[in-house]
């Protein structure tokens, strides 16, 4: 993995991704069954997510599909910002 800080993109929970920005999924933690379902629905590592709207409940676009994620789920999805 590249450890040069200049090449590292900022990482954050999906809840903190700015509205309208796109991020790449880096890690999923939290309950096993939730992670399983997230992965099955396309939120696997390296998937690109665009955050459309929402404050506590988020609206995201992931592989041509619109998904509502509760805060309790989105907190466990770590993304790196790729487009602000």
């Amino acid at each position, binding site marked *: 993995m590249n450890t040069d800080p200049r090449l590292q993109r900022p990482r954050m929970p999906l809840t903190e991704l700015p509205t309208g920005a796109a991020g790449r999924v880096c890690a*999923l933690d939290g*309950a*096993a*069954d*939730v*992670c*399983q*379902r*997230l*992965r*099955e*629905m*396309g939120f*696997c*590592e390296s998937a690109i997510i665009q955050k*459309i*709207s*929402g*404050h*506590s*409940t988020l*609206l995201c676009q992931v*592989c*041509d*599909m*619109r*998904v*509502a*994620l*509760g*805060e*309790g*789920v989105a907190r466990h999805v770590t993304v790196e910002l790729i487009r602000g």
Partner: protein
Amino acid sequence: MNPPPTQPAPARAPASVYALVGNPNCGKSTLFNALTGLKQKVGNYPGVTVERKVGTTYTQHGHPLTLIDLPGTYSLAARSPDEAVTRDVLLGRRADTAMPDRIVCVVDATNLERNLYLVHQILDLGRPVILVLNMMDVAEQAGLKIHTSRLEHILGIPVIACAASSGRGLIDLKLALSRTDLPLSRHAWDIPPAIAPAVSELQASLQDNDDKPPLIARAEALLLLTDQDSVRVAGSTPLSARTREILQHWENRWAADGTDWAAALVNARYDSIGLLTADIVSTASTAPVGPSRSDRIDAWVTHPVWGWCIFGVIMATMFLSIFTFAGIPMGWIESLVATISAGVSDLIPPGELHDLIIDGAISGVEGVIIFLPQILILFLFIGLLESTGYMARAAFIMDRLMSKVGLNGRSFIPLLGSYACAIPGIMAARTIEQPKDRLVTILVAPFMSCSARLPVYLLLIAALVPEEQVPVGPKILIMLLMYALGTFGAFGFAWLFKKTLLRGAPPLMIMELPPYRLPRIRDVLLQMIERGGLFVKRAGTIILGLSIVLWFLANYPKVPENQPEVDPLSYSMAGRAGHALEPVIAPLGFDWRIGIGLIQSFAAREVFNSAMGVIFAVEETGDEEETRTHLRDALRAAERPDGSKLFTPLICLNLMVFYVFAMQCISTIAVVKRETNSWRWPLFQLGYMTGFAWFVCLLIYQVGHTLGY
């Protein structure tokens, strides 16, 4: 490459049982309706209340085929009771449903990669599969080109391009269904090496100890490693002890060395799907760019401010329709029942049997059937909102509010439905994934003022407010107050339960918002008729029985002929029960006559009105409005033994509050028993709701009485 294995086909007739599976929102139900039309049977899987839909379609040669429409799911690793049923039927785990001979997989062509995940799991089962690429028209509009024949070649199974909403591709599908031989898929994928030993060990155990055929055993082994056998529902055959032991052993071992094998399996499948779709999907250069129509609608509908306004308008329209349009067909039902009663009166001479049929059976069933129009309108609206894709947005908007009390947005739909009747509302709670959230939703749903409380509110408000002098405003205000009280009660108790009794993880909502579509009127109407039919069936059985029992209680035992001064009602079982209840309800300001009404309300709350009619001897007229006016005057005139008025404004108000909070509905208790599979929760619900109602009414009456009202 070896020639693809084919199914032995000794019989001439094609295999007769097909299962229809697919992701939610892939158009599976539309396809099911298009194939089977009105030849559908809707029921429940025994022990779990997951809707079981079975239909009949015909081959090109006219042989009947059975089609089972399984609940939509994203994966065989189930997270809710609905999904568990799909998994169990496909794996042959259910004793009540034989393993289907063949499987029809429906996928949304606009989102092939995600949809193929389930197909990938199903191909592992080693059953004959037909793949239906639905919504090809939408995919083409979006500029997607899908090479169906190439996919067919790679997978080695029939792949049919289809648009169920316009009927395109249905003939091809019927031809495929009619085939006597269906090839098995030749698609193979590599199980990650780290997991392979576990898979083979589990597979061997499933074959030896659970009597599974080899391919099913392999698929089930893969599944057990991801879902850890977590969601089990009634009617599903449990695993053998040996298999569970092996599973436990591997879980412990992986937990120790920190391998995320579940993630590895999902990723391996997606890698395999990625290779598959790389060659068969291409995006045309003519693909539209910029936000789609759904995106533009969503910009308004999910907006933090406008979203709420639109939501409010839709809800208001729905309730106005329920309370206004339903009046017309309700009038028809009333006159129909009046005609039947008159006919029966002519046939049967006055006497016990006459009274039993007219006052017991017919009017009891009428009291429930009268709500059919309102329930149908509610189902119509819910169906329209679901099929346009709005319902998911409503749940999204409500999620924030619901999460304040510890529930998620999905609980909104059952609570909304409970405004018409708690029974369909409670049944709608099945889609909630977390068992505790589902239970909390079921426990609080009956607080939402159902349409059966409406006639009681109307009568008591009429008795409370002299309508000749007061404009209509205060009446509506009191009515709204009652609805608000119930809603606050539901939210308050949901919060309390999530804090104490059913403390659980914070709500986790993952919900797909399907693209907006024009509603499929035919599907909506079919669903409305099906659900309405179930309601009528219940009215014809449970309610009929209860009405007859209540009639006996209110009429027997008869007063002996040598004691004509005794009041027959007071002497009857119901009267005695009312007297027995009096000490409990006297602190609330209610007397034994109101007690009889409360007891009878257990059949259905609106029975209160007819009970009051019987008790205060009001003559029934053909017109409901007129009867209610007579009844209102009778209530106003009613006195206690000491000559004071019985129905003072305070008592009327208190009685309404009691109806808001108390659990007084046997049908709801029966449904909750069925949904939770135990007597514990319905009895708890009966206790806490009625107890709460009692305390609130005690408070209101004692405070009001002290203040001199």
